[in-house]
């Protein structure tokens, strides 16, 4: 019985060591298997269905108790947030193509709305850089923030490829602020431009829409693969790049810094050995008799003579 356990244990260890050593597998391990996120909650935002009414923005305000961001138009104040901020967790932006550009190609200028908010990445860069895991990915999908852990280094703001996290700059006890995926916006949308469901099904639905109406959409589901995949999927009739959505490779963002962090133990061992060797070579042999080392003895002599002087 015991020996069997032992053998099993050894076999398991060997297998683990073998797989860790096979560099190909290691590299693969850094790619995420998107299937593990199939059941997380995803949302499709269909910009071609969006009518720009900003009901979602208002719902977000109400649900999260966020103050309005008012801009004045001819003496009347409207809550029209333009950029994400500590109080604007979601904003509705409008893109209009330069009419001259369109005229060159002899067509009407294109335009599109874009509802912007946290993408709720499968493997979020913000969470991977946070030194205290104040930002974290939940199993259900949302990427959440725990202010009781945060130290306020703002590394998350710089690392997020979508530049989503925002800060409470005028507070003595500031928090990082961003969308927390409670989907009040989805429920509020009057025209069904936002729909939610398991990620896998949402991706299938998005592709179905593109296939059904190829003229309506650019053939790309933004968020399916970007930065390892996100839970917020964007369909649009205008190239996503024009909407200021960054073109990102399918690699997970943290795969840039993971190798550096994982190389550290090797560096510590290697440098420790090198320093030890250098120390041994320069100090080891001179101890038994000081004369063996001309540099050392002359130094001692000079020191002695200084002391006598």
């Amino acid at each position, binding site marked *: 019985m015991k020996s069997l356990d032992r053998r099993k244990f050894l076999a398991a260890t060997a297998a683990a060591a073998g797989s860790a050593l096979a560099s190909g597998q290691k590299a693969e391990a850094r790619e995420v298997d998107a299937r593990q996120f199939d059941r997380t909650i995803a949302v499709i935002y269909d910009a071609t269905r969006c009518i720009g009414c900003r009901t979602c923005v208002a719902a977000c305000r109400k649900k999260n108790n966020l103050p309005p961001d008012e801009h004045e138009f001819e003496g009347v104040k409207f809550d029209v947030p333009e*950029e994400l901020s500590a109080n604007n967790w979601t904003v509705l932006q409008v893109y209009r193509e330069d009419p001259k550009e369109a005229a060159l190609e002899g067509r009407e200028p294109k335009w599109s709305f874009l509802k912007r908010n946290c993408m709720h990445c499968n493997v979020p860069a913000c969470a991977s850089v946070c030194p205290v895991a104040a930002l974290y990915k939940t199993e259900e999908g949302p990427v959440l923030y725990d202010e009781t852990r945060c130290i306020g280094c703002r590394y998350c703001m710089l690392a997020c490829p979508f*530049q989503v996290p925002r800060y409470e700059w005028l507070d003595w006890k500031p928090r990082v602020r961003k969308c927390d995926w409670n989907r009040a916006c989805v429920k509020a949308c009057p025209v069904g431009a936002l729909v939610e469901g398991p990620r896998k099904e949402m991706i299938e639905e998005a592709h179905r829409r593109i296939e059904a109406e190829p003229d309506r959409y650019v053939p790309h589901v933004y968020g399916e693969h970007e930065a390892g995949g996100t839970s917020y999927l964007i369909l649009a009739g205008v190239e996503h790049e024009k909407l200021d959505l960054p073109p990102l490779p399918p690699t997970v963002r943290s795969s*840039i810094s993971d190798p550096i962090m994982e190389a550290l133990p090797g560096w510590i061992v290697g*440098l420790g050995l090198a*320093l030890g060797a250098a120390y041994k070579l320069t100090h080891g042999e001179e101890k038994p008799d000081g004369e063996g080392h001309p*540099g050392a003895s002359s130094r001692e002599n000079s*020191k002695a003579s200084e002391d006598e002087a």
Partner: protein
Amino acid sequence: MNGKRPKVPVIRLAFSVLVVVGFALAIYRLIWGLGAATNLTDAFPWGLWIGFDVLCGVALAAGGFVLAGTVHVFGLKKFEPFVRPAIVTAFLGYVLAIIGIMLDIGRPWAIWHPLVMWQPRSVMFEVAWCVVLYTTVLFLEFLPIVFERFGWEKPLQLMKRLMIIFIFAGIILSTMHQSSLGSLFVMMGHRLHPIWYTPLLPLLFLISAVAVGIAMVIFEAMLSGLIFGHRHPAQLLGDLSKGLPPILGVYIGLKLMDLSARGVWPLLFTNTLEAWAFWIEFLLGAVLPGTLLLRADVRNNRMKLFGCSIMVVMGVVLNRLNVALIGMLATSPTGYLPSWMEILVSAGIVAGGLLVLSVMNQTLPIVEHGPSARRLQQRAAPHA
């Protein structure tokens, strides 16, 4: 020399004023928030305090581990007189960087969180640990100076026996910390200008830190020599500076490799702020001093050597500012210029460090160890 002496108290007074002003502004920042005191925005979250106080402060403190390694590990004992000043500077540099960090992070009272709330995938986590551990090691390396001052023989002996362990730990931690400050930026490919953005950043930060470590030791020895009278033969400093050309050479080579490998040469020949900032940093900070120091007449001439050390120091300072600030401008819609409060707080921190250093220099056995050195100094005094 006599004519110069009265200047010291005047400078000290000026520095004290800066410290008081900086302190008041720091309180203002803590009460009213970062946005009230700084020009930081959501589109530019890290500014002068990270770019200068932390990145430059830590880089300029590299002399501590470089000199400790040169003398105690590689056995170049003739440079022993520089070890203590370097360690004291490094210790102070780290304390100042920590003050900078405390003011910059939004929740300074939570600074200890990374020690208990782990997230070992984060480079910032490594940075936090390195700051804590290396500052502790520097403190331990600094303690013998205090023991010696008060003549506490027993703890002194104990520390001396343990010292080599601290030195090893200090070197390893330093290399990790210097490089990790570069690693921070490898996650910012979408923000940092391609002239500086490279996966080699950790390595480049480490090598340039070694260079600036040596340059700072020379710079400081020269500066205190100009103010308080020279203690070291010019030849000794010249010999120390021999380390610079090869290290700068490796740095220059790596940087050239990196620029070619990533194909950014065309960007360097555009009339942009970034290109200019790069050339100044690269030519004046690395290529020129590296070449000049190949000549014995430059190395052994105090003022020329002083000039070269200043170039290297400025080069590395500019490099860190380029990575943290100038290289981030193009991608930020708001842009950034430090506010006067940010500048004064940074100035106050530096002034505080210099004040403490000058007081320590007079009260602690930093520059000279035993009686021999003191006698040497006495011999030099009438001459001066």
